[in-house]
């Protein structure tokens, strides 16, 4: 499928912090419009992959290719996709869980959402880990939740 690493052609890649060894995806993922909420995560993402024994993460999508998905945070520079088609399902899940845990610890619960997009078998080449800055649990929702009497839904009272 021609999905080898293509570090020789980082047409649109910009390592804003100069700290990481990310590589752009095969078609040159557009990362130029990514906002700080995402770019500041690079060191954490990079170290997570390294700590779990994986090669450096490859961004396969930044602000590109989501124009037809209204509401996608990619369009706002607040989401990236990282290649998952070079790993099995178990490794991708572990990476996603670990990333979620580290981002929650570092930046607080609820700011970032990490999702392993596990495609059906015949679409394995599209597997990826999606990371987005989505702190959009409105404060009113937490108030709404706290107004629920008792713990019928298993929530811990705030």
């Amino acid at each position, binding site marked *: 499928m021609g999905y080898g690493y293509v570090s020789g052609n980082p047409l649109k890649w910009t390592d804003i912090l100069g700290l990481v060894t990310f590589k752009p995806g095969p078609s040159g993922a557009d990362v130029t419009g990514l906002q700080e909420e995402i770019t500041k995560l690079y060191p954490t993402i990079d170290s997570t992959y390294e700590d779990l024994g994986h090669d450096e993460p490859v961004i396969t999508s930044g602000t590109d290719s989501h124009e037809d998905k209204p*509401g996608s*945070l*990619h369009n706002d520079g607040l989401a990236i996709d990282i290649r998952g088609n070079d790993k099995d399902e178990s490794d991708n899940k572990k990476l996603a869980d670990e990333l979620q845990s580290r981002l929650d610890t570092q930046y607080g619960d*609820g700011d970032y959402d990490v999702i392993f997009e596990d495609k059906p078998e015949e679409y394995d080449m599209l597997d990826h880990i999606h990371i987005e800055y*989505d702190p959009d649990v*409105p404060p009113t*929702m937490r108030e709404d*939740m706290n107004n629920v009497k008792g713990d019928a839904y298993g929530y811990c009272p705030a």
Partner: protein
Amino acid sequence: MVIVRHSLGVLFTLFSASGFAFDQYLLKSIEQFDEFSHVAVERGSIFSCPSRTEECLIQQLNENVPLDNVDLFLKVSPGLIKPRFSTEIDGVRLDPDDELILLDYLMEGRSRILFEGKYYRWKVPRSFEKCAEPDNDLRYCWAELIRPASIERWMYVEQNHYGAYWVPWEYIEVLD
């Protein structure tokens, strides 16, 4: 009767006759399928409608059948979710008694939701495990999953010898 409605740029076809349950949707989903232009029916059965019921069964296939025109549909048996508490999302007031229809997964954590005749793209739990923990994620767990959605992929095929028919995705062999 076949009702076709357009929403969110996607074609929904709601079948209410011909052996389909009224609450089942067919969702045309060709975006990824565009990558596979050559396929064949590898084995199994062909159907006159996207249902494995006997009345839809046309015949069994014993050999590979090349396909001329193909399209991929998701058959969605809608799920059901309910708000756990009164709240508001995207300007929509929601209360615990409201019933939200859970349809397909749209990626990036979001699902297609049908509520009071309108479609929304919200984060909700699609499995019971998602919100099982006490410290569950309010992005998803503002809603309680009552019944998961069931999704099957079917291909609609037009082939000169056989005419038009439906084939479950697992009977398809991708040739390229």
